[in-house]
């Protein structure tokens, strides 16, 4: 579904991604592990089109989408739920969700259906639908962010550190939701520092260090790998 070939990305002269090649197959839940500053967000933003790669190729279902605008990628079904959520803080929860469906705005019936689905997944949002998104708790805001991304009806959903700064119980809830979304057929690319929880629901994982992918393997191999356990799980 998604394929990156030797992708480089730069901030001025600093090379943030160095020849990254990876693949995500339809239906997979692929986890991207990495420490702070390893390049997870840069990689996501490059795929989303917020950043243009300085070299390499990004393709989606065989089509070259390198350097395309973020809006074209959302239309193609690649939706990112970004780190820090990037909600519209002064708009209501409902408005945030509706804007998430911006590319499907002409399909009123479809939007209503997706909205019903999001509300079913996160019932708390139904209760808070008229409140300003910025006034919600961190966990609730994360749900709005995931819900907003789902409203774009992604074929590939990219979640950038959805567990960051959340209470353990909420983290569990978020991971359950991510797993459910994947089970319903959405391909998921998940960047996490919370390696153990992420690997538990993963099909496969990549490890990124200093802008390079240094390791790749399926879930069990990663969970059993000594280096991964030492660096990211701590056991």
């Amino acid at each position, binding site marked *: 579904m998604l394929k990156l070939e030797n992708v480089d990305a730069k901030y001025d002269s600093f090379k943030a991604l160095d020849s990254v090649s990876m693949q995500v197959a339809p239906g997979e839940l692929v986890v991207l592990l990495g420490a702070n500053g390893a390049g997870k967000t840069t990689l996501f933003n490059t795929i*989303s*089109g*917020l950043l243009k790669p300085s070299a390499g190729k990004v393709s989606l279902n065989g089509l070259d989408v390198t350097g395309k*605008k*973020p*809006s074209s990628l*959302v*239309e193609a079904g690649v*939706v*990112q*739920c*970004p780190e820090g*959520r*990037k*909600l*519209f*803080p*002064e*708009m209501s929860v409902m*408005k945030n969700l*509706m*804007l*998430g469906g*911006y*590319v499907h*705005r002409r399909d009123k019936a479809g939007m209503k259906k997706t909205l019903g689905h999001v509300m079913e997944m996160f019932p708390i949002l139904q209760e808070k639908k008229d409140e300003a998104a910025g006034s919600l708790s961190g966990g609730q805001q994360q749900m709005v962010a995931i819900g*907003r*991304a789902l*409203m*774009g009806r992604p074929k590939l959903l990219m979640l950038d550190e959805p567990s960051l700064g959340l209470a353990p119980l909420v983290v569990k809830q978020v991971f359950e939701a991510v797993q459910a979304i994947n089970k319903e057929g959405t391909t998921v690319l998940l960047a996490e520092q919370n390696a153990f929880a992420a690997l538990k629901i993963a099909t496969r994982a990549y490890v990124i260090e200093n802008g390079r992918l240094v390791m790749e393997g399926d879930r069990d191999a990663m969970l059993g790998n000594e280096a991964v356990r030492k660096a990211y799980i701590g056991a």
Partner: protein
Amino acid sequence: MDLFFQQVLNGLTLGSIYGLVALGLTLVYGILHVPNFAHGALYMVGAYISYFVMVDMGLNYWVAMIAAAGVVALISVLCERLIFHPLRHAPPIHDKIAAIGVMLFLEAVVQMHWGADFRRMPTPYTSILHFGDITLPAQRLLIIVAAFSLMGLLHLYLKKTMTGSTIVAMAQNREGAFLVGINANRVAMMTFAIAGGLAAVAASLFAPINLVYPAMGHLLLTKAFVIIILGGMGSIPGAIIGALIIGFAEALGGFYISGTYKDLIAFALLVFILSVKPTGLFTKGVR
């Protein structure tokens, strides 16, 4: 007391015009972070187009106003496409210099074409309404009603429609807006079109009780900047309330203190408010 109410009405008239102009300025600033120094020139061009359509072509006042809004919206969008868009990755000072360039260009074109004379634009609404001892020229009533209706429409557009919401979304979180698939170019063009259209309508409304000349936008632009600084750059309610504050301050100050210094009042107020509340009165961004 009647004199006081008379000044309140005058303040409301001024505030309405300032509001329309400041709204455009604050919308553009909130979304693109461009201080559009050419906004006053767009206002001036709006007045000239209205004048031209009414006096030279002999068409109806409302037709003139709509024509002016259309033409200025188009000029405004062209500025975005040809000047501000190509400069989006340049250092911010380039936008400012370019905006001043556009202002000088538009003024020069108008002066070349229509000359530097002061002109008076006619209005079909010359009657004077009396409410007890308070008099209100029909044109002033028209200004107040039209300006507030437009502000109301703008509010509905931004709050209730999907396309309007994209403007607010972009002001509240730029990257978030990109990630839901909002097209930045479309929002930028739409914002410039609205800003230009509002400025032209404000000019067409105000021109009959003022004069039309190439430099007519200068003082208004500096006042509009005062207003959006007071209201908090990018804040829509801030721009409206800021405009009313300046409008009332000028009308009341001009009457009770000194008419000679009425243009000074806005700036004195700016210095005062900024020394008390340096972030402006409403600094929460576009709502």
